[in-house]
């Protein structure tokens, strides 16, 4: 595993420019620096801003402990896909925008001194969608966890399978799930952390296969998007539909954890499940 550094510049540059920003939660004008220095939370309402994959890992892993694996994978554009623009072009643009080759980062890390395999999806790289690269990295992380007998933690945020890789993307759902079956058979621990938004193909595969499933507050989590459901049902969706709190109430989450407590909660859970 090659050791790579986390670049603060790429972590931050995707937040809209300006000293101040409006919180989508409480609509207050808030001081950007304050948000950035406090886990990406609104100081007034604790709204959880989206985090890039690298920022997420920097917030979870012990400082300097992250060793990235499979860092140099990029999509081979298996369908030679074109919509309004060629996928190959879109990939290059997304890479420039995010400073990442694709939407996932995985590697070995420590959390409060506990070794583990840690992964995170990036909500800004084509909506964190899963194509071949995300599928391969997540599967690689699962296999590494099984091989090293280390706990696995993946922080998932995604719009689902990546349309531009068509059926190949869909099959990444089966691939990651099959790898988790083997990890489970081997007695490995998988803690899945769902953060805003986590839907469709990623929710309907590895993200909902955790031994323990955690979500951040008020995240959008579900199979179909609210717009599609609204079009199907042709009536208003219930208050708080498809939020973390809704899922907890319906029995699909173990707990909701606020971002500043995530590290210590993960460490405590790992201690219960260690062998």
């Amino acid at each position, binding site marked *: 595993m090659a050791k*790579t550094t986390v*670049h*603060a*510049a*790429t*972590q*931050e*540059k995707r937040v809209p420019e300006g000293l101040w920003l409006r919180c989508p939660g409480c609509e207050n004008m808030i001081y950007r620096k304050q948000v950035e*220095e406090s886990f990406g939370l609104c100081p007034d309402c604790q709204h959880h801003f989206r985090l890039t994959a690298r920022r997420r890992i920097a*917030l979870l892993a*012990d400082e300097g402990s992250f060793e990235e694996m499979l860092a*140099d*994978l*990029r999509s081979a554009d298996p*369908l030679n*896909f*074109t*919509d*309004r623009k060629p996928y190959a072009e879109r990939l290059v643009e997304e*890479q420039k925008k995010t*400073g990442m080759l694709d939407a996932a980062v995985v590697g070995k890390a420590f959390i*409060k001194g506990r070794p583990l395999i840690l992964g995170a999806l990036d909500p800004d790289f084509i909506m964190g969608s899963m194509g*071949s690269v995300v599928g*391969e990295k997540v599967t690689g992380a699962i296999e590494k966890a099984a091989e090293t007998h280390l706990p696995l933690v993946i922080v998932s945020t995604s719009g689902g*399978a*990546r*349309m*531009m890789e*068509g*059926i*190949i993307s*869909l*099959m990444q*759902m*089966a691939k990651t*799930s*099959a*790898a988790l*079956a*083997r990890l*489970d058979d081997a007695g490995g621990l998988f803690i899945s952390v769902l953060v805003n938004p986590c*839907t469709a193909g990623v*929710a*309907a*595969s*590895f*993200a*909902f*296969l955790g031994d323990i499933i955690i979500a951040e507050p008020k995240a959008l989590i*579900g*199979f*179909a998007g609210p717009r*599609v*459901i609204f079009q199907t*049902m042709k009536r208003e969706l219930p208050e708080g*539909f498809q939020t973390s709190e809704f899922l907890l109430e319906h*029995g699909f989450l173990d707990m909701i954890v606020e971002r500043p*407590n995530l*590290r*210590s909660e993960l460490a405590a859970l790992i201690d219960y499940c260690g062998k």
Partner: protein
Amino acid sequence: MAPGPILEFEKPFAALEEEIQGLEKVQAEQPGDLSAEVAALRRTLVEMIRKTYGGLTPWNLVQVSRHPQRPLARDYIDYFVSDFKELHGDRYFGDDAAMVTGFGKIGGEKIMLIAEHKGRDTKERVACHFGCPHPEGYRKALRAMRLAEKYALPVVTLIDTPGAFPGIGAEERGQAQAIAINLMEMARLRTPIVSVVIGEGGSGGALGIGVGDRMGILQYAYYSVISPEGCAAILWKTAKLAEAAAASLRLTPQHLLELGIVDEIIPEPLGGAHRNPRDMATTLERKLVGFVRQAKRMPLEKLLARRYERIRSVGKVVSDPAALVALNAAAAAEKAEAAPANGNLPLDAN
């Protein structure tokens, strides 16, 4: 009997068929031999259908896969599954009519059948949610699979869904979780699993009963990560460009075979399964029996290892260290340019 015209490109067939029927009627009522004319018209019809179906676009193929007269799961059950013992319910919430499960025999082989069913008449279609299963459908399927595993019965799945149901109840009962569990459990189910897409292979709704040892697809069926309409709405911003999306998605049997997603394309009768359901059923039965026997012959551990390898190997990535170096260099340059405002990220205070 051939169905009435439904699809635009089928209309010329219907006109010709009407003409043939007219001649046959005349022949029956009046003296004189018209059999040569009738035979010639029949040849023309066959040629016309062959030509039209030889040139179907991916979008046309999607239309055929959704043809209102296309045989559905329960039609095939009626045609070739003997002693079918339907099993109902997921034991948690309800019985999903869109997912049909039960013991049965094909070619003398005992199997567990799991099939997505769209419903034929309006009433049945509504009861089946037009072939869109709810979480209880996927859980019912899993229950049937576990039963099959316990008694070493091969699982046969027939896939035909526009997608898993996107609704309030489906979300409340964990649609994503229900599908996810099926993917994981099918990957390690200790009995053979063979599948055929008989109509629409709609995304996760199809995959939820589609992980296994062998995958066939009918000649005019499709399998895709998203419907062409859905893809067009998102990427082209208008559902009207479904035709373009259908082409870009590579969802036809031929593409799926080339991509290694399906093992075999099962030929349909001339003009599609709906023009001759009985022949279609005969072909499908023969193929399914072959799939089942082939899977049963393999020792279970080898079968499971191959199943994993089959699932594991899908995907196409490039290892590109140079691209990574370039990205990191660009990021480092930008970092040097920007003030070191966020050099130290805050860590957990606890």
